[in-house]
């Protein structure tokens, strides 16, 4: 039996500006099926956090149940983590975020965990604009229970068993848009060039950032008849524009000829540079974003890239007017100020 990953790395591998090697962002070796799209997403997450110079212990990764929700074991091994109940990742994330808003929250979910059992939870975490990254590893099937169609499987798509799906698919990006997410993107596990800048943008985004990543299930849903297999997805990708993430202070390395690209500024001054293509629309317009998803779908294609960006400074904490300090750092006296305060409060209701 092999299956042990060596601790040796490339001798010229660099460290990031914190002095951490990429190994500090890695996790255990994956036990998912060989070739699973989820592993590529894990690799993209590792790369993004490494390059964004975020200390691993300032990250919390939270997941539900499913193949996708196993992945936090395989990345950011030094971060906080909570593998929660099926479909309940949003509640647990919300709770954790309430207790300590200083951490960077990344929620990992699957199409079953989000679009079926966790649908209600998903809807509410979006509308509350919780400051987190929400990644759905979307393979259109229930891989862990042998590949039944999930709620994101397209009508007419058939997995390994060969039976066409009869039910309408839930488009999670449209749903997130409708519910008020400020950062909505779709990507493909096999396209790290696009996925990594999207994750970096999501890390910088303040508020709810949603990325739906199509991630083929190599065991049950990677056949030519499936709309979520490697081959089909590659043949039907249609990006909103190639994307680069440029951190604050860094000079633009690639000069885009005038008019061929547009910049999207994030709150901290970093930028997302989008190379324009035929889908040139106002990224901050919810209506146009909705429209373009529909248009591309009608063309039997899959829209990927950054679809919508509109930073809403009112995240959950702002909306509920919580104190500036993380709640878990409040002292006993601050949380429980004593009888005199209680009495005064009660007096106020008389």
């Amino acid at each position, binding site marked *: 039996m092999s299956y042990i990953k060596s601790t040796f790395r490339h001798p*010229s591998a660099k460290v990031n500006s914190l002095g951490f090697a990429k190994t500090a962002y890695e996790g255990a070796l994956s036990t998912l099926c060989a070739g699973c*799209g989820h592993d590529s997403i894990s690799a993209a997450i590792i790369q993004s956090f490494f390059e964004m110079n975020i200390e691993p212990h300032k990250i919390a990764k939270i997941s539900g149940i499913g193949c996708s929700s196993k992945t936090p074991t395989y990345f950011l091994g030094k971060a906080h983590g909570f593998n929660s109940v099926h479909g309940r990742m949003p509640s647990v994330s919300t709770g954790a975020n309430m207790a300590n808003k200083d951490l960077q929250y990344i929620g990992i979910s699957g199409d079953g965990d989000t679009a079926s059992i966790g649908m209600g939870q998903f809807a509410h975490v979006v509308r509350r604009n919780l400051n987190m990254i929400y990644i759905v590893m979307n393979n259109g099937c229930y891989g862990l229970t042998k590949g039944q169609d999930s709620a994101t499987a397209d009508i007419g798509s058939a997995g390994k068993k060969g039976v066409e799906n009869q039910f309408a698919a839930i488009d999670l990006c449209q749903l997130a848009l409708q519910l008020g997410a400020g950062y909505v993107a779709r990507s493909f596990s096999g396209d790290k060039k696009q996925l990594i800048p999207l994750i970096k943008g999501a890390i910088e985004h303040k508020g709810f950032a949603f990325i739906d990543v199509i991630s083929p299930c190599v065991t049950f849903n990677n056949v030519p008849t499936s709309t979520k297999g*490697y081959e089909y997805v590659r043949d039907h990708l249609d990006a909103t524009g190639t994307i680069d993430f440029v951190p604050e202070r860094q000079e633009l390395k690639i000069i885009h000829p005038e008019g061929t690209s547009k910049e999207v500024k994030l709150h901290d001054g970093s930028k997302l540079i989008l190379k324009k293509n035929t889908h040139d629309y106002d990224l901050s317009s919810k209506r146009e974003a909705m429209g373009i998803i529909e248009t591309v779908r009608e063309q039997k294609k899959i829209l990927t890239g950054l679809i919508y960006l509109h930073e809403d400074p009112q995240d959950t904490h702002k909306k509920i007017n919580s104190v500036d300090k993380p709640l878990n750092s409040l002292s006993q006296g601050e949380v429980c100020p004593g009888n005199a305060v209680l009495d005064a409060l009660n007096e106020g209701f008389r």
Partner: protein
Amino acid sequence: MKETDIKDINYFHKVVDCQYACPAHTPVPEYIRMISAGRFDDAYMINWESNVFPGVLGRTCDRPCEPACRRGRVEDQPVAICRLKRVAADHKGDIKHRLPDIPKQKNGKKIALIGGGPASLTVARDLMPLGYHVDLFDDQYKGGGFMRSQIPSFRLPEEVLDEEVNYILDMGIRTHFKHKVNSLKEMLTKDYDAIFIGTGAPRARDLPKLEGRAEADANIHLGIDWLANVAFEHTKEIGEKVLVLGGGNTAMDCCRTARRIGGKDVRIVVRSPQADMKASPWEIKDAQGEGIPMFENHTPKAFVCEKGKLVGMLFELVTAEYDENGRRTLVPTGEADIFMECDDVLMALGQMNAFPWIERDLGIEFNDWDMPEVDKTTFQTSLAHVFVGGDAAWGPENVITAVAHGHQAAISIDKYCRGQDTKDRPNPGTTLISQKMGFHDWLYNAPVSSDKRHVVEHVDTNLALTSMKIEVEKGFSLEQGLNETLRCLNCDVQTVFEKDRCIECDACEDVCPTNCINFVENEEEDLLRQHLKMPADNLDQALLVSGELKTKRVMVKDENVCLHCGLCAERCPTGAWDMRKFLLNEAKAGR
């Protein structure tokens, strides 16, 4: 870049860095795996087939394999390949029954070998099983050549040498020891079908013009001659204060030998900076470990005598300056000359070939340096049935190079005797076999040990210095040896990629610990090397490039620091990657 042609055996051969660097191309990872499996006889025989003297080389080899070892690029130290060879030799059982059968019916061809060193013995080893009649001539009383006369017994015990020399001599070679060949002309009259000259590089460099050289002659010794005299017990002592001139391995052997037969204050004095010394780093370290100091940048100026006897040497201090071509000049510093007292001086300043016994009118062409012209491939001289190999061919090298020469010369002699073209060289035998056993299961030990290089223990220095016969290195214990085998990265287990099976899921790219694997747009090699995840800066190491994939990209793998851990194949859902063992056995005479 063009798609890599993996059918070209040179491609995978080059990936096995150690084997490629070895002059005899010994299949190193293969025998290391055998040791790991406790199959010491098999490990020994792989070596014996390839390098003829595993026990000798496991102690004394110049180890060109080790600087080449991939492990040395992944971490600080290469695998202790040389000392593992000794593990195989130390732990083997009786292997005599595995030696080749010697036909009783000879083929009627007679071969003479002049010189009884590693090159000649290798020729004999390769030709005897083919039915040749072999006569061996040497001026020593036993076989082994420089292995016997130059390598002191505290580094190479005589029993070890005797055993391996005798495996060959016992094949039925007719030996003529204590027989110095003084005329090739005379040899040519003796009706041999072919003659092989393996007489080494027996002439030591001297400082004939240095002031006081003649007067002090009684206490000035030429290193190689002196070592031979010690080995054959003609010389049994030396003065207390000894200066050894020279910075090569012979100098190291001289000073360590001197320490054992009376030398108390033994010093090495070199003209150049210590960093330029030719001796192997480990031999320098061993000499230093025996309390031998080194003095660098000291150029000999005079032998100083009093009353006709050597009392010391005078040295001029220099500093090394290098021009833009890296050529060195030693420039005097102008400081006062240094005087060092001494009773004896050993000169180990290098060796030369010398052929006073080859008449110049025999039809053998000699070049401008008065050396016979020898073909680099066939080892043939312009006199078709005379062949030269080992140090005799192009000057001092080492045992393993002599063995490699011997194999090639044997091929040529065999072809010549059969009336075939000696230029037409046989190909090595190669196989490429999948190592997959099942799910997560390989025929080789895929996980990579993170052990640091294990250190071979030495006997206590005070004890070691009491005798020429006490071997300094103890060799690896069995446990150390087995742990050291696990450090081998199995570079012969090749990563083979079949593009038509690839679905471009990136699993291999993601899991690869050293980021060797890339899926990128194809470009010219120099650009491609820069555009990989980890720039492929080691130009000696090849890129494995696939044909065009469905997405128009190509798979590019930088061979440089691949750990051969098999994770790419492990994580490949379609079997596009496979781990296949590439075994290359160098061609041999008659096969």
